[in-house]
């Protein structure tokens, strides 16, 4: 045994040393894990707070009476108004306007992307303009155009804008550009070989359209329809401005009515919010299911060819005329009505004679009127601030979700996406519940609007950032690391330059969306913290229509400039989301 002893001792020592090293290694690893997990946990807490707390307050207010759970408030709310007729008109409105949008948008997408329509690029760009115009402004422009007695088109277009028909048409025309954008992307990405193969099989142009093109576009059509229905359900401007005067009520206008009265009945508003929230939740769930199903439609094989353009032949000019008529009606007429009114000393039915009264006083009033000027400042500060914060925070969150190796990454993703199901009005209401009696004075300042905007737009910031990170392959980052770059260096010198265009596009998107936001702002602003969209709404209520028009024209011009910038940046990003 003796000769073995040192050997044995040596072995024991080595084992001990190994264990020590292993322990130290584990300890280091554990510390590294904690270091990695700390930001992850922080992010989780942040997004959970933003997404869940307001919903919790909302549920509590809707489902409690005198400090305990009860469905009595809901029963009372619906006993008073009747849920049936409200649900029906909400549905009619949502389906009707989605239908209008889908027909107009898809036709335009097909004509501009897949045919030899003359001036198709111009038509495409022009048709997108209403996407930039805030909903409140677009709706008011249609009131200018079509309202009885004062409307410019009143004799040409005898449709009363107030009431269901008007609501469906205006909302439909306002949503159509979004359909155009989504369907154009779907049609453009189609593999032309699939149609060529059908042609070679002996199918004529119409048979190819019916048997190959249309079935392939169907998943995109369903998804688009769903998005439109959700948008219309959440829509506030059109039901409030066109529905309420005619006594046509949908969920959002009821919520508004409960809050706008005196005294504001927040409990009743919360009760009306619940069914709406349930429907949007189901809608978003269906949408994600649809996405998974369309994966089965994935095209096999390698590189395809871009789809060929259909020659319209003798239909070319009639169809061109039809698209121009559409542009005249949906784009030029509303903007023209605003522009005309913005140059008038008082609001009146447009006439040629009116052009002699033209004045710039409404435009100078934007800067001389204290409330309007302040609203402009607030809007700029808030939208730029929100966009910057959302972009920076969501870039970090996306990095953790896309590149991290944590269990529970899906949870962050789900929480960040949750605000997508919350209509703006409902979010505003929920935040009121949270912050009205908050110890820190947030209510009554711009901060509450900042929180609302951040919550509403973080899903979009996340999408841009995550899509960009998915596109930069992990190899690129690893190549930087193996070339000797530290994690920070590889992020700053490799990842950041690659991500920057996509982040810039996302930033611009949020700036635009925040500038247009109305429904949440309307519930959360206080005197001094108005934003432009709220100012437009109050000017309308106060009947100051010409000043409103001038403010609207300035805002639309600013948004259009931002939109063109966003487009320019996005074109440089390959395969940009949406």
């Amino acid at each position, binding site marked *: 045994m003796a000769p073995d002893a040192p050997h044995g001792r040596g072995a024991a020592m080595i084992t001990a040393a190994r264990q020590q090293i292993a322990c130290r290694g584990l300890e280091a690893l554990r510390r590294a894990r904690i270091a990695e997990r700390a930001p992850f946990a922080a992010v989780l807490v942040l997004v959970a707070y933003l997404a869940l707390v307001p919903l919790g307050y909302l549920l509590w207010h809707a489902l409690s009476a005198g400090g305990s759970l009860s469905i009595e408030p809901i029963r009372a709310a619906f006993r008073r108004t009747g849920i049936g007729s409200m649900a029906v008109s909400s549905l009619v409105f949502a389906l009707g306007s989605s239908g209008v949008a889908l027909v107009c948008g898809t036709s335009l997408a097909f004509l501009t992307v897949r045919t030899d329509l003359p001036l198709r690029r111009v038509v495409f760009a022009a048709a997108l303009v209403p996407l930039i115009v805030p909903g409140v402004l677009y709706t008011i422009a249609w009131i200018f155009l079509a309202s009885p007695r004062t409307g410019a088109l009143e004799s040409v277009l005898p449709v009363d804008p107030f009431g269901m028909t008007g609501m469906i048409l205006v909302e439909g025309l306002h949503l159509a550009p979004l359909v155009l954008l989504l369907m154009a992307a779907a049609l453009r990405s189609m593999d032309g070989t699939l149609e060529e*193969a059908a042609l070679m099989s*002996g199918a004529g142009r119409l048979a190819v359209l019916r048997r190959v093109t249309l079935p*392939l576009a169907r998943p995109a059509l369903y998804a688009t329809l769903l998005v439109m229905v959700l948008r219309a359900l959440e829509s506030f401007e059109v039901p409030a401005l066109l529905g309420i005067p005619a006594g046509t009520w949908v969920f959002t206008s009821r919520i508004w009515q409960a809050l706008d009265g005196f005294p504001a009945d927040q409990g009743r508003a919360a009760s009306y919010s619940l069914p709406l929230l349930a429907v949007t939740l189901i809608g978003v769930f269906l949408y994600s299911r649809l996405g998974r199903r369309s994966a089965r439609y994935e095209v*096999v094989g*390698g590189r395809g060819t871009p789809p060929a353009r259909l020659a319209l032949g003798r239909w070319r000019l009639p169809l061109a005329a039809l698209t121009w008529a559409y542009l005249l009606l949906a784009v030029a007429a509303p903007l023209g009505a605003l522009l005309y009114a913005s140059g008038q000393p008082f609001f009146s039915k447009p006439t040629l004679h009116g052009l002699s009264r033209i004045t710039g006083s409404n435009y100078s009033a934007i800067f001389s009127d204290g409330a309007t000027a302040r609203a402009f400042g607030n809007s700029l500060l808030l939208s730029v601030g929100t966009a910057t914060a959302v972009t920076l925070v969501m870039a970090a969150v996306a990095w953790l979700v896309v590149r991290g190796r944590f269990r529970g990454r899906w949870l962050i993703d789900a929480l960040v996406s949750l605000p997508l199901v919350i209509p703006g009005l409902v979010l505003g209401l929920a935040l009121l519940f949270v912050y009205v009696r908050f110890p820190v004075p947030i209510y009554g300042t711009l901060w509450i609007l900042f929180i609302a905007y951040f919550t509403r737009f973080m899903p979009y910031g996340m999408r841009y950032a995550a899509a960009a990170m998915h596109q930069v392959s992990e190899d690129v980052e690893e190549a930087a690391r193996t070339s000797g770059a530290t994690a920070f260096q590889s992020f700053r010198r490799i990842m950041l330059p690659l991500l920057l265009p996509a982040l810039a596009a996302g930033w611009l998107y949020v700036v635009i969306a925040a500038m247009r936001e109305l429904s949440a702002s309307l519930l959360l602003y206080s005197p001094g913290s108005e934003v432009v969209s709220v100012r437009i709404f109050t000017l309308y209520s106060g009947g100051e229509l010409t000043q409103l028009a001038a403010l609207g024209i300035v805002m639309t011009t600013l948004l259009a400039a931002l939109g063109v910038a966003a487009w320019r940046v996005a074109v440089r990003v390959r395969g940009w989301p949406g």
Partner: protein
Amino acid sequence: MLSVAGLTKRFGSVVAVDDLSFEVEAGHLYTLLGPSGCGKSTTLRSIAGLEHPDAGRIEVAARVLFSSADRVSIPAHARRLGMVFQSYGLWPHLSVERTVSFPLEVGPRRGRPPREEVRRRVERVLAVVQLSGLEDRRPAELSGGQQQRLALARALVMEPPLLLMDEPLSNLDAQLREDMRLEVKRLQRELGVTSVYVTHDQAEALALSNRVAVMRDGRIEQVGRPREIYERPGSRFVAEFMGNPNLIAGTVESDGIVATAHGPLRAETSGRRPGARVVLAVHPERLTLREAAPEGDPLHPNELRGTVVNRAFHGDTVEHVIRVGSQELRARCDSSTSIPQGTEVAVGLPPESCRLIDD
């Protein structure tokens, strides 16, 4: 069977196909071979009717499909030709069965076969391409080779007078590509369907074709049987494209002798006059190789002195790169010959394997 005459297609100022004419015999597989951008795909798509040529005439089985002179242009769907696409063009929403029955369901109404016959023909063609039993699968649920077979079945089901194939195997990995190459050949020969095949892969062209046309800049550089094209390339371009790296420039010295930078070499001069500038071509597998020290090992006729500068083992063969003067030659030896780098060697160019190309 297929006759193409004076075919011309321009894209803007670029002439993709330049006054091209060729004929394909019934039952033949005719390959258009060339590098990318040589106009081979444009030619095929013009025959298919997917591209509108600027000039020329295309006839299949005495039926005029296109003629710029007579202002005839039959649309693609009325030509009734079968086509296999590079990316297959399989419809993701249709099952195997529906994909194959599609061509029988969409033609002119009076030409459509009754349902019973459709079923029988679908069944038969699926059996021919060995897809029986997979009728209900979607394209995404098929393997690469099965997708390829499905694309073939769809093209064959209407028994077209002419089958067009546009690089149909280029999306498959190497092993499968070789299997499918034999499969396509078997099908084409068994069914006797006249075919035009487009590829940039010379090995594929040699293995499949009855005739190969090597294309360059929208024109046919050389047409012939695969062996002719391989062994007797008509130009330096064809020789290089067929993968021959051993090209030695020279001039005819006298009958049977060519003067080169490496000294005179014997080769069949086929009546070329002395002074004619030529390129001497020898395929790598024809070169002989033996170790030979510069002192003490005299050269045999048509041998050149060189040094092995690189060597690669391929399994069945060993490739040697030999520096001879300022030039590198490649020799592909059977795997029993393997000479280390740096060794002085004698490279033999057997006169009967030396082909002359006019330069």
